[in-house]
Every structure is written in C-alpha cells, then in structure tokens.
C-alpha cells in the first residue's frame, strides 16, 4: 500500500517556489530519504506531510486519504523535529506521554507506554528529568520516543542527526535503521548528508530548487546520476564536459564518472583512456584523492592508498571501463 502520495504538489511562498510540481509515492514500511542542499524543498515536503504547510496546488494522500485541509492533529503522522522541540516545562516522561495525554489515555496506561518507549530508545529511568538536563544525543532519543509512542503510520524525521557529533551520528544511524526494520513503520527522513541518505534509505529522492532531480535506490542514484546536479551532490562524481564526451565517442553532452572507477594506469584492452597532468592530491585515509587536469577539465581519481602517488605536475594516463561512463540529462 502507498503510505504517502504526492501528485504534482507545489508550495509557493510568494514568488519563491519552495516545492515545485513534486511527484512521489512512498510505500508502506519503506525507509525513504529526501536528500538535498538547504533550501531545496525537502523540509517543506516533510512539513506538507506533517500538515504544517498546505500545498499551493496538487494533491497529497496519506494511506489513501486526502491530506489537504487536514490539520496536523488529525493525521496519524508524527515528527522528530530538527532541534527536537521538547517541552521545557515538562518532565521527560510527560514529554513522551504528551501524545497519549491529549488523546485522553489514562494516567497509568500512558505512564507505562512512555516508560516502554524510553526503554526502547535506551533511556530507561530518565523519566523524572527535565529536557534541559539531557545531552543532545539523549534529547534526540526522547524526541524519537515521543513520536513513536503514538504508533504513527508514518514517522517523519527532519535532519534528526544533524546536531550530533560523528561518532554518535553513526551509532544513531544504525539504531534508527534497525528500529525501523523491527517496527515496520514507514520512515521519511530528511537530510543534507548524502552518506547518511545512501546508507540508511531503501529509496531516496534528490531535491534541488524545489524539484526532485532523481528518485531511486541508493545504488541507482549513486552509480547512475541522472543530472549533473545529482552527480555533483551525491558522492561528487566527475562530470565530463562536452568536448571530452565527444572525444570518448558519446552522443550525450555530459557524462558522469565515479572517482573510484578511474585508475591511474595505461589503458588495457577495451578500456577508455585520457591523459593529463596531476593538479593536486590529498590523503583521505583509505584512498588518495588525486585531481588530474585533462585539457582544462578536472577529473578526480580515488586511488587506493597502497598505490604510488604521482607528483604534482607529472603527466599521467587515466583509464576506465566504458560501462562506468554514464550519459546524463543536460539539467
């Protein structure tokens, strides 16, 4: 069943088209990511799902029911806010139980449900504290428990990991993913971190300037970026300009080429090759990033750290398989 359906949805703020004719359909139980730079419309899409915004035009359905004109408090959708939005005047337990309290669930029952939810996010016994006494990571978990305790059909997460440090973020990514799998709830996740989107999502939509640039599985989006924007934003693929494409015998005006698909070596049979000079190099741990200048176009190569690093200015030959070169739309 379709959990969330956007049919040509637009949301304009004056002359600004925050969301522009977006079409998407999110399946029940899916972990769906909306990826894009700030101001690309991904958060507005999330707010349209939550009901904080109403579409200027188009149609939204949540589990088959029309969402336009339905206020947030009548949607079985819950949100984990970017800065958590915990109620500062309530204890952690009352924060988590808030959704049950406004639904009129009895004190004992909601207390038990809230304690279970806190245990689920690994914060048992924190109920009596105040939000101000918790760390950022703990508040994030409380926000998650507060949303999940209502057993929503769709959980919306607005850059929930943005404020956490790297270590905690990686840990929460894993926990979120396994939580989603065990609960079977549809998760819609907004992020500007392409690594996060690729590693967690079943499918993702890449947003730019209010429009979806590409919608697909992480593998599709990563390996076959449809537009130059996606190639650049998701994993910084090389974009080969027109003249290089022509030289390599392509019909399209632009093509993408992943840095890790390129080797600094003479071409073996069947492979394509280009030659240029080394412009810069930097050590990234597992790989060295070497940027090669090919007739003015800069092509990045992810070279395994074990390989020798050519000196800056030295001439090199780049080789890659023809199948790694993906023609793109001109957008």
């Amino acid at each position: 069943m379709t959990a969330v359906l956007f049919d040509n949805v637009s949301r304009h703020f004056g002359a600004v088209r925050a969301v522009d004719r977006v079409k998407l359909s999110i399946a029940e139980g899916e972990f769906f990511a909306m990826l894009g730079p700030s101001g690309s419309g991904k958060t507005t899409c999330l707010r349209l799902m939550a009901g904080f915004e109403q579409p200027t035009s188009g149609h939204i359905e949540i589990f088959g029911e029309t969402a336009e004109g339905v206020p947030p408090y009548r949607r079985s959708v819950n949100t984990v806010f970017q800065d958590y939005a915990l109620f500062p005047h309530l204890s952690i337990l009352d924060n988590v139980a808030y959704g049950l309290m406004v639904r009129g669930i009895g004190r004992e029952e909601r207390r038990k449900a809230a304690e279970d939810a806190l245990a689920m996010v690994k914060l048992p016994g924190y109920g009596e504290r105040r939000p101000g006494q918790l760390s950022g990571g703990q508040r994030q978990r409380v926000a998650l428990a507060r949303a999940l305790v209502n057993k929503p059909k769709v959980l919306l997460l607005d850059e929930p990991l943005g404020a956490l440090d790297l270590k905690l973020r990686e840990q929460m990514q894993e926990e979120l993913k396994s939580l989603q799998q065990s609960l079977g709830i549809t998760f819609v996740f907004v992020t500007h971190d392409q690594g996060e989107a690729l590693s967690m999502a079943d499918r993702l939509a890449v947003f730019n300037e209010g429009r979806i640039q590409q919608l697909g599985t992480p593998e599709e989006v990563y390996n076959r970026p449809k537009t130059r924007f996606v190639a650049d934003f998701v994993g910084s693929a090389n974009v080969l300009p027109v003249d290089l494409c022509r030289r390599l015998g392509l019909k399209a005006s632009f093509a993408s080429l992943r840095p890790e698909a390129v080797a600094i070596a003479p071409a073996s049979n069947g492979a394509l090759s280009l030659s240029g000079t080394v412009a810069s190099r930097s050590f990234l741990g597992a790989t060295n990033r070497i940027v090669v200048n090919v007739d003015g176009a800069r092509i990045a190569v992810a070279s395994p750290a074990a390989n020798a690093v050519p000196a800056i200015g030295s001439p090199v030959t780049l080789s890659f398989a023809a199948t790694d070169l993906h023609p793109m739309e001109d957008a």
Partner: protein
Amino acid sequence: MTTVAESFPLPERRGTAGRLSDFFWRHPHVLLAILLGPPLIWLGIVYLGSLFALLLQSFFSIDDFSGLINYEFTLATYRQLLSEANLDIIIRTVAMAALVTLASAVIVFPIAYYAARYARGKGKALFYLAVMLPLWSSYLVKVYAWKLILAKEGILTWFLAKLNLLWLLDAWLALPIVGGSSLSISYTGTFIVFVYVWMPFMILPIQAALERVPANLIEASSDLGGTPAQTFRHVIFPLALPGIVAGSIFTFSLTLGDYIIPQIIGSSRLFIGQAVYAQQGTAGNVPLAAAFTVVPIVIMGAYLWMAKRMGAFDAL
C-alpha cells in the same frame, strides 16, 4: 620565499585611559564592583532601609488623646487595621485589584499573542506604539477624560442611547455593588479606568514571554495530536505563565496602591491608597498608614510564593 605582508598596527595604549582599560580587562571584578556599587548602595540603604523603617512604624501606636506616636512595640495598630471598617477597605481594594488583574490578562492575551507570533516589521512597531501611546499623556488627564466619558451626560451614555441600548446600561447600574447612579460614580467605572490605565504593564511582559516560546513547540504539540485548545492549555499557557505573573504583579500592586482613580471615579468609599493618604496626612496616624502599606507587601509575597508552587517559574 614569500614575504609575510605587514600586519595592520594594533591600537596603541594611550595615556591613563589606555592603562585603565587594560587594568579593567585584567581585573573585571573591579569594574563590576564600580558599576554595581552605587545602585546596590541605593537599593540597600535608601530603599530597603525606608521599607524597614516603614515596617517598624507599623508596630508603634498612636496615643488617642495627644495624637502623638507612642514608640513602644505593640500590635495595637494591627488590631485597629483588622477592625471592620478597615477590613472593609482592604477587601474592597484586594477584590478590585484581583478583578483588574484578571480582566487585563484576559483582554491582553490575544493581543500579546498576535504581536508575538504574527506581527512582523511595521506591524510590530505599530503594536509597541499603540501600547506605549497612552503612557505618553498625563495620568491625570486620562483619568479626567474617562470621567467625562463615563459621566451621565458623557459620550458613552449618548452612544448607547443612539443604539437604543440605554436599558442595558440602566439594568447594569441598577445592580447592587457594581451599580450606582452613573458609571462615573460606580465601582464599574473605577474598574474600567483601572483596567485601561494599567493594561500596558500587563501586555508587555506577556508579549515578551510568548515571544520566547519557540514556534516548533506549538507545531510539536499539534503534531502529537493536541488540538489548538489543548496546545494552549498544555504548552502556550504554562510557558507564558512567568510573563502573566510578572504582568499581574504590576497591575495588582499598582491597583493596590493607587489613590487617585478611586477618588475621581467611583463611589466615595475608600481604597487602601486613599486610606494611607488620609491616615498619614489629615489623620496623622502614621503607624496605621504603615500598617495599611504592609497589606500589599504581604499579599504580593503570598502571591509570588503561590505562583512558584504552581510552577510558574519552572521554565525560566
């Protein structure tokens, strides 16, 4: 070799001022002491000292025959304060202050809410102007203007007559306690003028408190299933409570202490302020005047203690 570009010159240490600012930078506590000393001395000696002297006065008594103050500690003045006539004044004043405070809070809340959440730029400037504008004109002018508005021949009666609603006014004035022969000499009139005059002192703290409530808390409540009424009750109101308490301290204590409005508008029955004025002036009974002023202090103390117990300051 690249040469490092010459950096811009640092500010020079010039004379005494330069040495002084360096000294203060190294000893910030000295600067703090210099800045806070005079106001603290003022508060400590002039303000708290006179308050203490006032409290002390209330424990003396007056000699009924000579009219001189008898400097012996006694509770006689407080016994006099709790006599029926004086208790009547206290109850009347406290009831009026409570009603004025409640009415101000109720009238002001939607305006403050609008100003805090929706007004931007020019709209906000207009709001502040509208709130402050009445404070620009003299208090006495405003009170006398209200006397004319509320008088029997005044514009309000005329307006109600035009609307054929004079019967409504007459019915209200026929009521006991709140009524009278006209609005300008009834408790209703006193109440209206009090609310008008003290309202700005309620609106600004509430607006400031509401402005500090993050918009996403309201969205979060709605997202979790809270209807607008529930969101108001469980999120907006508790978070605005410190502002309401602050505003009510203003309106409540200003009404408790005022002696001009009830003198110009209202029945001739006394309020605490008038009683203090009369006791320390014509009657020359300073101890009783002091005892009267202790009443607002005790009430405000009890009110703040209650507000704290209710959790009004938990989110501060």
